[in-house]
């Protein structure tokens, strides 16, 4: 009877929190865009909260509000919800052509709460692949024997989201396990427009459509406390093929990568923690894309100060899955602050991240300001 009452109360509070957060931030659910994702399935999202991302992603496997690892949920002691938002400023240098871009994203949300002393259930979303981009291509085509300048604008607005239902359980004082079910879904509004310099004779052609994406996946992870200060993490994830539908017809199906990684966290006293992790994804298995690459990424970060108001910083490096020729690389550094309020029932996290991406003929520099809010009613 007690369990049923707890479940009912949990469901009610979770519903209220979800409604409030979704109402307040019901806009695009995306990570940061990149030109490197245009010729692939998209730009992989970062399954990290602001806290984890401020440390370069190093704390993500140990952070219950980062959707990367399900086992970390086992540490949640009361119903909590967390949302992440970010504003990016991106400068693109494509073979000497410079452009400045900007976007606002809400890449992750997690709601988690214990249903028993040892079992925690969580739900939420994160960005799996971002597919928001726009390219303008100017060209001259020969029409009716006359060179005709044309301007093409191809835009895609949307993302593929990862809806997660996960369970984290503590099996002992040292070991926690987590499993998750993932529904990968989302859509993009796509537009292809061609306009002509000769507007007197040629009409602008505009094609619009909506592409719906769908796949399913599963994940498993564990946390193992070697000592009270040293914790190890490992995780694995597999997804089905990603189906793209236009108007109810499947237009393409693509493999999604296996994901696996490991991390370590060390508590260096009461006011300092260090963490690092490595991550592999075999994007090269996406057969339909000629220039898909397996990726490896790493991160290292630290959290210093009292748990109520820590200072964080971190480094990350890795590769991007799509790019012509050599695998594009990504290097970044980040820092941030956190602050608890309302007697620990709320926490505000802020972070700033700088990323530098390099590929054949293309360089991107990204500044991202992140803001995260966690509440524990």
């Amino acid at each position, binding site marked *: 009877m007690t369990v049923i009452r707890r479940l009912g109360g949990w469901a009610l509070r979770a519903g209220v929190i979800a409604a409030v957060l979704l109402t307040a931030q019901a806009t695009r659910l995306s990570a940061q865009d990149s030109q490197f994702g245009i010729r692939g399935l998209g730009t992989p999202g970062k399954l990290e909260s602001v806290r984890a991302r401020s440390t370069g992603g190093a704390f993500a496997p140990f952070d219950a509000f980062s959707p990367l690892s399900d086992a970390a949920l086992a540490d949640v002691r009361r119903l909590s919800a967390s949302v992440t938002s970010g504003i990016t400023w991106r400068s693109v240098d494509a073979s000497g052509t410079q452009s400045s871009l900007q976007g606002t994203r809400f890449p992750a949300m997690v709601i988690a709460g214990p249903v028993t002393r040892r079992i925690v259930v969580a739900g939420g979303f994160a960005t799996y692949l971002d597919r928001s981009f726009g390219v303008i291509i100017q060209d001259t085509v020969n029409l009716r024997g006359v060179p005709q300048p044309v301007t093409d604008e191809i835009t895609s607005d949307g993302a593929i989201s990862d809806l997660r239902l996960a369970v984290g359980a503590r099996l002992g004082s040292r070991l926690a396990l987590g499993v998750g079910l993932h529904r990968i879904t989302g859509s993009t509004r796509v537009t292809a427009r*061609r306009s002509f310099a000769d507007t007197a004779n040629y009409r602008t052609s505009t094609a619009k459509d909506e592409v719906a994406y769908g796949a399913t996946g599963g994940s498993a992870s564990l946390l193992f406390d070697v000592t009270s200060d040293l914790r190890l993490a490992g995780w694995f994830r597999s997804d089905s093929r990603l189906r793209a539908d236009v108007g109810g017809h499947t237009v393409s199906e693509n493999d999604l990568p296996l994901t696996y990684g490991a991390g370590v966290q060390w508590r260096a006293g009461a006011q300092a923690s260090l963490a690092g992790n490595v991550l592999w994804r075999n994007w090269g298995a996406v057969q339909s894309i000629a220039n898909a690459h397996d990726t490896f990424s790493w991160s290292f970060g630290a959290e210093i100060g009292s748990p109520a108001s820590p200072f964080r910083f971190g480094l990350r490096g890795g590769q991007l899955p799509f790019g012509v020729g050599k695998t594009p690389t990504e290097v970044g550094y980040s820092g941030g602050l956190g602050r608890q309020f309302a007697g620990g029932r709320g926490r505000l996290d802020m972070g700033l991240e700088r990323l530098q991406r390099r590929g054949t003929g293309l360089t991107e520099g990204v500044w991202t300001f992140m803001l995260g809010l966690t509440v524990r009613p």
Partner: protein
Amino acid sequence: MTRRLGFLVLLVAAVGGGAIWACVEQVTAPGSCPNYCPTDSITIRDTIFTAIIQRDTSFRGYVPGYGAEAMTAADVPGIVDSRAFLVLSKAPTRVQVKGGDTTTTPIISDSARFRLSIMRRDTLATNLRLRLYHVPITSDSTSTFASLDAAFNGPVVDSVNLSALLATPPSIDTVRADSLERRFYGDTTYRDGAGHILALRDSGRILDVYFHFDTLQAPVVEADSGQIGFGFRVAADSLASIAIGTAQSTRTAFLQRFFHHTIPDTVSTQPDSIVAANQTQTPAFDGFVFTPPTPALDSNLAVGGVPSARALLRVAMPAFLHDSVDVVRATLVLVPVSAVQGVASDSFKIVVQHVIADLGAKSPVDQTDAGTAVIHIGSPDTVNLEITNLVRAWSLDTTQTTAFVIGQVPEAASYTEIRFYSSRAPAFRPGLHVTYVKRFRFGAP
């Protein structure tokens, strides 16, 4: 307390700033192709559909010559001799002596002023002369070139040399010179010693010619109820062709008659009084006749002539033009059988109008022009009519009737007619030149 306040300020600033930044979105950049552009690209195709026009035909009889907004007087040796004429409406030949008294007295014509408007002329014509003749007041729609030939070869009522008149020093109305009226009504007039006045309208494109008639030139015949008919011929060293405004236009001809009548003294206490007045007569009928007449319809597509002919063309739209492409340009290609002969100023416009329901000759059409082209006299060139909007509409809406009519503008105002090869002539049949964008392959990586 201070720390809490500081943190609150920080929170508000962060959330507020985020809300402002959230409104700005810019994700479009110049593409670095092909490496960092979508796999698919916008593909354009250009195709001439040679067999897409089917069941095309022409019908004649839409607008008769007497229903046109202009009538042509032309004399182009070897090509056409066109003569215009009009019959003025009836007018009172007697007036009542006084109110309430049925006694009438005849009017005595003093003079008349007659105006006609030349709507179009060839400005390169030299020694352009306009001659007026009397024509029978019975002239009507049954009149032919032959039936009126005697009248047009009779005595000349009046003649004016328009070229000479335009060469005389103009009289400029300085009051109107800088006014808005000048642009509408003109301010420049020319006159000669014979009482002819020529006024320029519409920046000189329209000529209003005023004639001064005496009682012999414009007699009042009581038996004819005051009706009188005039015919018009032109002559010039070359390029003798003008269009005269009709009752269907905004500048119809009219005659203003000045007359007097006498009111007899019935009580012998005062002498008879003379009353001067005037009245205006406008055409009851106007039209024109020409030789050689418009040839009969044949297997080609006729547009123009008198009575006017229109061509009805039906388009068999391929299925793929409906659902898998976006038409960006569509041009109807028509090959003339021969160049239209005449004077350069007789060049005319043809228009394409969408057929709302295909009922053959009596198909209702959308009055909006879907395409226009100017047919130049003497040019045998292929005629291209841009009908992009029409074909785009057909492409998007499969319920629309895929047919259109080609007509002349203005209709039946001139002897000119163009004939295009129809689908019965395989080598020269009408075609539709379509430029289209293929559907973009969305959803592919």
